């Protein structure tokens, strides 16, 4: 298994924050945590740079590969505290309790109909994400991949995220 053996081109790349950015805007249906707004903001910026307003045409087989060691740590901590105190968590926390949800939100908004894969990296996050993207494309289930790398800051601040669209370079 060769991490980062990808021969795929970087079709677009974005970060959040970039110069002038504040906190990313909220996302309807997602609450309490900076994780989901950050994923959506960096994905939107990356895809907009490549495709404008979107969405992509059907059968684009664009995978979403989300790489995060801890995922939504703020949301998970809130659930832990609420449950430990004998309380009831809000229903929205159920729907956002796995990273697939926000990855699927991005996929639905942009029409990305390739695989949705979430990884918790055991080594270099970008190398692991690129290796997964390469495998999905080599294997044929994906034609290109949106790789999202995110780690919220430990103090609950939004943290940083990078999104990379990997695929074969073609004329647009």
């Amino acid at each position, binding site marked *: 298994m060769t991490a980062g053996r990808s021969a795929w081109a970087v079709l677009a790349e974005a970060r959040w924050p970039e110069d002038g950015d504040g906190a990313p805007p909220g996302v309807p249906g997602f609450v309490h945590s900076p994780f989901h707004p950050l994923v959506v903001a960096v994905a939107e910026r990356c895809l907009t740079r490549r495709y404008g307003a979107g969405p992509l045409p059907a059968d684009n087989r664009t995978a979403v590969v989300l790489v995060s060691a801890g995922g939504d740590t703020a949301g998970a901590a809130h659930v832990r505290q*609420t449950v430990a105190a004998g309380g009831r968590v809000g229903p929205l926390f159920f729907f956002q*309790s796995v990273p697939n949800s926000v990855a699927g939100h991005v996929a639905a908004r942009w029409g990305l109909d390739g695989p949705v*894969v979430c990884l918790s990296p055991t080594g270099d996050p970008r190398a692991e994400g690129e290796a997964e993207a390469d495998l999905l494309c080599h294997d044929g289930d994906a034609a290109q991949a949106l790789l999202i790398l995110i780690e919220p800051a430990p103090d609950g601040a939004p943290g940083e995220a990078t999104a990379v669209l990997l695929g074969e370079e073609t004329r647009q």
Partner: protein
Amino acid sequence: MAERGPVRIIGMHAVSALGRGADALLSGVLTGAPAFRPVRRFDTTGRRVTVAATLPDVGTLADELADAIDRAGRAAGLDRADRAGTALFLATHGGPHSLPVPERPAEPSDVPGAADGGRLGPPVPALAGHLADRCGLGGPTRVYTSACVSASTAVADAAALIRRGDLERVVVAAGYLVEPDQYALFDAGRALATDGAVRPFSAGRKGLLLGDGVAAVVLESADVAARRGAPTLATVAGWGRTGDAYHACQPHPGGLGLARAVESALRRAGLPPAEVGYVNANATGTPFSDASEAAALGCVFGARAGRLPVSATKSVHGHALEASGLLELVVTVLALGHGKLPPTAGWLAPDPDCPLDVIRDAPRPASTPYALSLNAAFGGANTALLVGAP
């Protein structure tokens, strides 16, 4: 590196509320008696639903995973040198663990540094490294946190990497033990069946119920398995992974994404749909999801979908979330190997939105060379694993 032949399944182990080991799992799913009982592991006061399928005397997730990996490795005949060259792909929840507390003092195998003092095991992703060390697996590690397709995606990736020649052997391990945080979330989301029964594809189905699931499966390239004389339990003949591009949490109502996953698995195996003689369905017992899955099967199999034997063993062992794909793969391999297709519990009456041949009441004898194990998850993620008889 050269592409290789069909990927072999050469060892496996599973733990669920039905018991420990493959024999207990097979016996339990063939009996078809649901394992749901009142939850004793933690307090469910205030929850709408208070049952789950839990195994008494279960250990920590780390301990159960290590045991499953070790037993699967022994079943596969892996010696110390074999293990040193084996990769570990782990499927589990990515957040902080909320696990059953073992009723024992701390032991040397506990990992220091975890927030709980180490008794419950290390946080993800360190858990993968911890398990690899404990079990002597020296190859690469990966951790999948893709909700209910975590384990099946790991199997697909492992098979693809073996087929591509990157790896000779992978242990895929997956685990979920019913715990208070996810239980509270599923209860709050009104996902749990308020009548205490899982009724896949049936009229009157009300939702899912959670269940323990820990499993490990050893995948190996055909040439290495042949050279070692390893027993072949089944082959992973094909696999497919797709996204619906429809909704963050709901499947496409027409099942289009899941249908594409099945078609991808068949295409990879070079087989027509007619070769498939059994489907172990994702079927959680959730009204919308089961109808979507039935529509997917209709897309792929056409009129034959109504005559294709289908069962949903979540109705017996519960939904093991990130581990469900591996637990159900083990069930599918056992069903193929023994020529007995497990029944689906909880059936009340036909649902016109699910016009399928659902096996119920008793196991159905069958001899088929290929079966599908299907899974779907939040995010519109779908997987199909095409299992070949040995």
